[in-house]
């Protein structure tokens, strides 16, 4: 089975019903997307498929149609995405385990809606669970990232 992740093509030998998350983590050692719940309740596994946020724990590799971008492909420490810059400036993370998914979902939100209201943020980010409770900072970071992208 072939898939493209962060611009690199990979060949994997797995059952077609293996979730994309586990292909990424345990077959390709791409560990930015996290396992949190396995049932689309926490959002920690969120990646983009052709630019759209998808819970990779729910997407069977056999059903993957499109290129995958993980948090590692969104931006890097040396070349940060605007959302990541905002996340750093707002010092959002505590344990940080959910933040890969939060950032991927926020990037998708801002691609669809460049100037989201708090209500929009609450509707789109409602599926991303943060056990540490960094929500006030996530909201602030989404607004800050929106401003950065508007200015870009």
């Amino acid at each position, binding site marked *: 089975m072939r898939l493209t992740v962060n611009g690199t093509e990979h060949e994997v030998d797995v059952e077609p019903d293996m979730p994309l998350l586990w292909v990424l983590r345990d077959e390709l050692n791409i560990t930015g997307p996290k396992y949190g*719940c396995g049932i689309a309740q926490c959002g920690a596994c969120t990646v983009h498929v052709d630019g759209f946020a998808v819970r990779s724990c729910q997407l069977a590799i056999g059903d993957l149609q499109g290129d995958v971008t993980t948090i590692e492909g969104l931006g890097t420490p040396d070349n940060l995405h605007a959302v990541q810059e905002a996340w750093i400036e707002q010092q959002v993370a*505590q344990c940080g385990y959910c933040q890969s998914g939060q950032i991927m979902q926020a990037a998708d939100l801002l691609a669809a809606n460049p100037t989201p209201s708090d209500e929009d943020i609450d509707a789109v980010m409602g599926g991303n669970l943060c056990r540490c409770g*960094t929500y006030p900072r996530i909201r602030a970071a989404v607004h800050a990232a929106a401003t950065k992208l508007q200015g870009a």
Partner: protein
Amino acid sequence: MASLGKIARRTFLIGSAAIAGGVAFGVYAARQPFPNPNLDDLSEGSASFNPWVIVDNERVTLIAPHADKGQGVFSTQAALIAEELDIELDQVEVSFGMPDQAYFNTAITEAAAGFPMYDHSPTAERVRGFLGGVAKLAIPMMATGGSSAMPDVYTKLREAGATARETLKLAASEESGVPVADLRTERGAVILPDGTELPYTALAARAATLAPVTDVALRDPSQWRMLGQPMDRIDIVQKSTGTLPYGIDFRTDDMRFATVKVNPRQGGAMNGYDASAAEAMPGVERIIEITGGVAVVANNTWRAIQAANAIEFDWGAAPYPADQAAHWEHLAGIFDDEHLNAEARVEGDVEAAAGEEITGEYRSPYIAHAPLEPLNATILVTEDRVDIWTGHQVQQFVEQVVAEITGHEVDNVHLHNQFMGGSFGHRLEFDFIRQAAEIAHQMRGTPVQMTYSREEDFVHDFPRHITMGRGVAKVLDGQVNALDVQIAGQSVMRSQMGRMGLSLPGPDTQLHEGAWDAPMFNLPNFRVRSYLTEALAPVSSWRAVGAGPNVFIFESLLDEAIHAAGADPLEERIRLMGHDVSVGVLEAVGDMCSWNGANIGEGRGRGVAYGFSFGVAVATVVEVTNTDGGIKLDHVWVAADVGRVLDPVNLENLAQGGTVFGLGHAINCEITYADGMAEQTNYHAHEGMRIWQCPPIEFRALENNPKIRGFGEPPIPPSAPALGNAIFAATGQRIREMPFNKHIAFV
């Protein structure tokens, strides 16, 4: 803040550091009874004086031994050293180091001293000092818990930094011939009067030959460069780019992935199992019997979990009541002398006190820890040694537990502590370590990563203990005249320590923590009694431990009494309080929200609550509206006094996050048992707060507490009663049981 580019270039030294020639410093050299663990890694001819600072010819490495579960101590420990060492955080490498008794926690026994933590009298301090000494000699425990990291390291890490700085200056003086008094230090270098910079790394070899300068004076906080100012957490870039490896992300060559299933009736037997279907599933390599269950070893975690789900088990009965109702019935029956844990506080005479009586019974349920990173551990067992990669709060015990299973000398068992995707107390437990060790022991030579499925993480959690409170309050002449509080619950400490093979003599102070030590010195009649049982489901420390349930019980009863008295909830609390630090946080929170009573209009209300835990006074005000769709949280204000603020941004984050944690669980989380098993198996049934329920949370930090305190847990206890009290103000409905959504709808 440092520029993004600089932050991005930072790298961490995780796990053991291979130091080639160097020097380590620390003031504890003189009075430190334990050998310096860094000596083992230094090459011949090098010197090392202490556990926290290592300088070689290439880099400065700071050891930050306290575990980081998200609270940010990795950064703050490094900043404490760097402040005195005169080096910037982007110039150093920071490591958790390797577990060693040299890093034993001097503050963790403080809460067990039997004195309220606001009591700074000579007697209380003598007992604390004595207990700390006993602990040092008996079990010099390296541990992160009880919000004790900052009290533990506040002085010793700054001293370690100052010692290193002064010794490097001495080395520079010898090299240059310039008197020490004419040298200064800045950005990781000693600077000569002519401006010449001698980097610390260039001075390492000579410094290694010197005895460390231990007679150092710490700088006054007014001189601090970075402490007390907003700092970038040193893990923030990695955590924002998916590049920080947690324990679950550890990868090495030829590793296998495993998962386990043990009896969901905690502690019950495994009578039998049929793994024939699982054995035939793709990628499955071994099915291994472990204590109380079965492990599947595969070449992919998902395949291991799928196969484990395909095993048919015959599980034995639970060694505790099978159904939840029986747990509550049991608690209701232990308010008697036979089960008395302690008469923890007696002031005046609550029974003879005059006044109108208000009574209430309160319930706090079992709750799961459920950190977002499921419990996991990677272990490699070879003939000579064992290596463990996991995140844990009691590091040396991990090595001991594994050594007992593999048969190695404990000196040959090495824990590489990892960043944790949360813990909330779950990573104080050892079952997952033992299970991973049993697997790796049978897979010698192959590294195996054992990961719980989220479902296993829930059903095999040791949740927060259930608690039942009964209170009688008396109000007289518009004031609260008496509070008589009885708390029945399980002993968290006995349950938890029992699994570690330790016994707890005497009463469990956590059973009345947060109630007995409420510093309401102006309350003339005040009694707190607690009752203990060990007959229910096994439980563990859940963030804030006893103070979580107890502050809910205490502050709810108090609020009922204040309303019955017709007094103002904030004013009456301030009147009852004879403790300046606590009055300070109550006045601060009132100022922040422009408090003008609990009733703020039709269908709206405010609730205030105060909590004292881990030595920190916290006051919280919650504002709600009763809408057609249910209760909506509009705004929260929190004021707290930690004595000394080291990182105001991180502290605010912890205040907000702790409040979210307290509110979310109070609203919608409980673990209930049916047929001996936890009924909630994933976040759909135990979700805590989500972003759309999260109100704006404002925070103010005060610095009047005479001692520095940790803040990982204290924001939690007052949040639940503040919400319950706000709901009462908005609706007239008094909710005496968590989770609140059993009694009222939320938006």
